[in-house]
């Protein structure tokens, strides 16, 4: 009885995943029945709603990448530094206060972050650099970075706390400073957990929808200037599914192709991360 119930529960997760992949696949195949895959990969114009339709994924891909890269530049160093502070330096009572705050920060709804970007960060950037667009990649990506920061900090810290004390003692006894212990013993020993936290954070940044829809704009263009508007894959999907697009039309099918691309991207990222963490793992 009990194993049966537990088994069906786990079956639900598996079946859901299978279902999602199947829907993605069939719709994507249908999409590529009408649009050549070569255009999808090579064209640098994404204009499914214009009269002159083009389906090049590149603008959306570049938009997503720019958001992800800048968000990582914000979140990974600060998150790791926070984790090192919490696990190696902070007195117990500081840790007891800061850790729950981090977890609350991780629970802030993304719509709130989105308006934080649009109404606070964007004006701030525009007061420094006036030629910045109202909707711009920089503001959105900084806030995406802030959003994933607690995840990096909290998960990395968990991994670092799990490193046995005797390893730290061994390094201290050789005359290592606290910083050397953190950097040369604890971080390497916790590396697989830290990388896992990075990847999870990156996947969230890639998949983040609300903040970029609100703050980054809806202009699908290939640009590497973060002060301009960009459209990410997720923001495009929101745009189409909100609007008055006919079901079964090529526009509506295109969101599945974009969704598939997103899925492949995060899956690849996860596989790379697994490889890296296995390759560099220090077992203790």
């Amino acid at each position, binding site marked *: 009885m009990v194993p049966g119930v537990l088994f069906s529960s786990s079956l639900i997760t598996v079946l859901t995943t299978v279902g999602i992949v199947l829907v993605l696949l069939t719709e994507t195949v249908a999409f590529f029945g009408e649009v050549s895959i070569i255009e999808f990969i090579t064209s640098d114009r994404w204009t499914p709603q214009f009269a002159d339709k083009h389906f090049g994924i590149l603008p959306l891909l570049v938009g997503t990448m720019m958001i992800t890269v800048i968000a990582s530049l914000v979140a990974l160093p600060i998150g790791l530094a926070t984790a090192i502070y919490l696990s190696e330096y902070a007195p117990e009572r500081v840790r007891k206060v800061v850790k729950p705050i981090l977890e609350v920060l991780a629970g802030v709804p993304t719509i709130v972050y989105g308006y934080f970007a649009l109404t606070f960060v964007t004006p701030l950037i525009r007061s420094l650099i006036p030629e910045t667009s109202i909707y711009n990649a920089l503001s959105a990506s900084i806030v995406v970075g802030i959003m994933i920061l607690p995840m990096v900090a909290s998960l990395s810290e968990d991994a670092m706390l799990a490193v046995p004390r005797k390893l730290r*003692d061994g390094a201290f*006894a*050789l005359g290592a400073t606290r910083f050397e212990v953190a950097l040369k013993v604890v971080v390497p020993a916790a590396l697989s957990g830290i990388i896992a936290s990075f990847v999870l954070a990156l996947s969230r940044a890639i998949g983040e929808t609300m903040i970029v829809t609100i703050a980054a704009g809806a202009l699908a263009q290939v640009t590497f200037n973060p002060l301009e508007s960009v459209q990410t894959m997720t923001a495009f999907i929101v745009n189409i599914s909100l609007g008055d697009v006919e079901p079964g039309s090529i526009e509506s099918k295109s969101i599945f192709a974009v969704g598939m691309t997103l899925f492949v991207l995060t899956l690849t990222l996860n596989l790379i991360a697994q490889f890296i963490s296995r390759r560099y793992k220090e077992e203790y």
Partner: protein
Amino acid sequence: MSIIETRNLNLYYGQHHALLDINVDIEENSITAFIGPSGCGKSTFLRTLNRMNDMIPNVKITGTVKVAGEDIYQSGVDVEILRKRVGMVFQQPNPFPKSIYDNITFGPKLHGVTNRHELDEIVEKSLKAAALWDEVKDVLKKPAYGLSGGQQQRLCIARALAVNPQILLMDEPTSALDPISTAKIEELLDELKETYTIVIVTHNMQQAARISDKTAFFLNGELVEYDATPVIFQNPSDKRTEDYITGRFG
């Protein structure tokens, strides 16, 4: 000449008075053993000698500890340099999850040795001194965790020797090992005392009797008796020492 001298050393864990007025002189190039039942303060005392108790919150220390004439609890003492001079080997073998080679070079690199050739030499010398070279010389790049427990402990000794300490503190270094590995390490200690001063905490009285020149008996945070090892084991002056070594308690 005494390389370590403690005077009226008291240590408190919060309210708990863990060491009471410890006065000990430890001679250079000798093996000194600390014995006593669990919780008697012998390990705590050992860890005051390289300030490893600093890491524990709420520890308060009064009195003086001099290592080679310098009071190590004075402000301005460089703890990292102190720990380089006073090495430590722990109860559980604790190699880093790195290769054998990287374990040995960890300390020297911290203290600024970067020359590849020099590091190679340190590795060979330290492993030879720890009687491990012949067993591992062909697998230096392999992970240290592949070694047996006894080999790991000798690796930890080699790692401690690699920073060229004067004193080696050992906290029950053989308690997690089998008898053959234990015998190897005891044999090693006898050679090492030519070059280093060794202070060893042991739960095993036979071990203290076999290897040490002087023995200190601790009980409830007090140093009950401290004398040449044969005196402690054959002719102790304190009744409590006699009771302990004859196995009446502990």
